[in-house]
């Protein structure tokens, strides 16, 4: 047990993985938010999802992949077939080999997975000061605190407090464990110009992109809630009837 752990720790340090440092002067601050998809009847706010996709496309996608999603999935957040085609066709993907044995580039199709910004993890690291930008497909499910955590990271960039020692190339973040994050502040007011005219403030963009990413991590959520409500109502009635039958059958024993 000791050896693999030590080896893993050494490897993690060598590869520049940022492990949460203990002894930071304050706890990570997670801001609780109101989410449209919370609760038994929760569903994604379509407009927020679509704005969130714009934020992802214009900002996050420069470094973060979304490997588990295909362009066709965007139909679920309300993009028309033409819009999905246009989004897919805006990237060039490698295909092949063709009948000449050559790989070739072609415009993306709705059936293609989202094109990753880097060819591989090593390329991603070398372009990002040694840190690996995580894939965002499951980020909302893969972090303690879920959407609140991701929101708090995006809205949590501040100037470090006086006396806080920052490592070269890191940014101060109130929500990140240890408060030093390798990601530079991605959002600033107006960095995205929303097609629906919403004012692109940092909290607005963070909220929108987290809604989009929550959908990316839980594309089944709306179906799940819908089927769930019906199922539970059915079961409550059925169980009530079963209890009545039980009472009737047992009447002569009691």
């Amino acid at each position, binding site marked *: *047990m000791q050896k*693999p*752990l030590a080896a*893993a*720790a050494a*490897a*993690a340090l060598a*590869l520049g*993985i940022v*492990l*949460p440092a203990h002894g930071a002067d304050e706890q990570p601050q997670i801001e609780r938010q109101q989410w449209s998809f919370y609760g*038994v009847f929760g569903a994604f706010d379509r407009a927020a999802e679509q704005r969130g996709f714009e934020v992802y496309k214009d900002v996050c996608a420069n470094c973060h992949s979304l490997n*588990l999603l295909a362009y066709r*999935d965007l139909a679920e957040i309300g993009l028309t077939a033409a819009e999905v085609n246009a989004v897919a066709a805006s990237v060039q993907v490698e295909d092949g080999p063709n009948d000449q044995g050559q790989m070739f580039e072609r415009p993306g199709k709705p059936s293609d997975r989202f094109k990753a910004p880097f060819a591989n993890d090593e390329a991603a690291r070398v372009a990002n000061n040694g840190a690996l930008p*995580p894939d965002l*497909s*499951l980020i909302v*499910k*893969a*972090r*303690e605190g*879920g959407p609140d955590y991701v929101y708090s990271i995006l809205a949590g960039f501040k100037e470090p407090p006086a006396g806080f020692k920052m490592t070269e190339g890191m940014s101060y973040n109130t929500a990140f464990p240890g408060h030093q994050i390798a990601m530079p502040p991605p959002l600033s007011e107006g960095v995205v110009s929303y097609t629906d005219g919403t004012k692109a403030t940092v909290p607005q963009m963070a909220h929108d992109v987290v809604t989009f990413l929550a959908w990316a*991590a839980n*594309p*089944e959520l709306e179906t*799940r*809630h819908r*089927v*769930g*409500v019906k*199922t*539970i109502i059915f*079961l*409550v009635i*059925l*169980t009530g009837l*079963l*209890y009545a*039958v*039980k009472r009737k*059958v*047992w009447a002569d*024993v009691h």
Partner: protein
Amino acid sequence: MSQPAWNSPVVKWIDERLPIFTLLHHSTSGYPTPKNLNYWWNFGSLAGVMLIVMIVTGIVLAMQYQPNAALAFDSVERIMRDVNYGWLLRYLHGNGGSMFFLVVYIHIFRGLYYGSYKRPRELLWWLGVVILLLMMATAFMGYVLPWGQMSFWAATVITNLFSAFPVVGSYIVHWLWGGFAVDNATLNRFYALHYLLPFVILGVVVLHLWALHTTKSNNPLGIDAKGPQDTIPFHPYYTVKDNFGIGVLLIVYLAFVFFAPNFFGEPDNYIPANPLQTPPHIVPEWYFLPYYAILRSIPDKLLGVLATFLSLLVLFVLPWLDFSRVRSATFRPLYKKVFWLLVLDVGVLGYVGANPPEGSFLVMGRIATAYYFLHWFVLVPLIALFERPRPLPVSISQPVLGGGLAAAAANPMEKA
């Protein structure tokens, strides 16, 4: 329990050649069951329901899952996203494991409270403990299959427990891994065993039921049925009661599946396995937390592993540690108290197991571990020796009328 007369000539023809209808009759409408079973007796059949749910959902998931270290994580996500109702199957299976353990733990504590492990049900109890051990092995290997961070590191931590054994330890670990680290070979064999073991459990469940139908059910009074006036046929009385129980279980179970499907899960398991990065806290599933707390409470690794095994194996000798002839805690004032203290102690162990082993958690864990073993090896035998049980009722039908001191004097050794 006479031979039923079959009306249908077809049924009669078959039954004379293969007495399958007689078997069914003896297990249902011909099976006498104490009339006073309370709702705690529902949990055995609920465990059976969960086993079937797990096997059915598991087989369908296996049709889509890829047990390969390079593909496993993505194949699970493919089930979640691209397989029709794949998310439902996976969430049913994942939460089903938790429900199965919840139901089985209640079933075990019911047995502990009402003395269901005592003569003549020792083998019935043993088979139950074997089922628990098989369930733990199956659940552990199933948890590895999604090949997320927690899968990988749980596999690393748990298999490494065997390295504590002197001389042979590292050989055992390499043999379990099928290599020199948790890797593809480990995943392959865990998958094969995770598919196999549920059917072994099913076999032991059949033996468990066979033993049950031989000794018949215990009951809340812990006294034997004296005759037909104390029993009712299993069908329709307990089939209909069990069906109501299944309805309640499904409401709880499916509420988690549909509205909080990741409640029992760890967020880290949605990060693909990475042998180069250890998660800050490696935590097992909730149903392993008490054992995990015992493991970490003992400073010596080998002793910790042995204590963890002992914490379960003690259940095998329980019928002889508790040699009191009175089964039900209803009539055992002292045993009833330590029973609830044990429930509390296991709860504390679970709470400690979920937290890092430092500071007050470490102290709490050590006290709770010490108390856990004190319960089995000291309190239970001492109480059996010195406790003065309350008088037992004459029979199930006359728990009040025939009770009291006079009845107790008339039946000083109500037993077995």
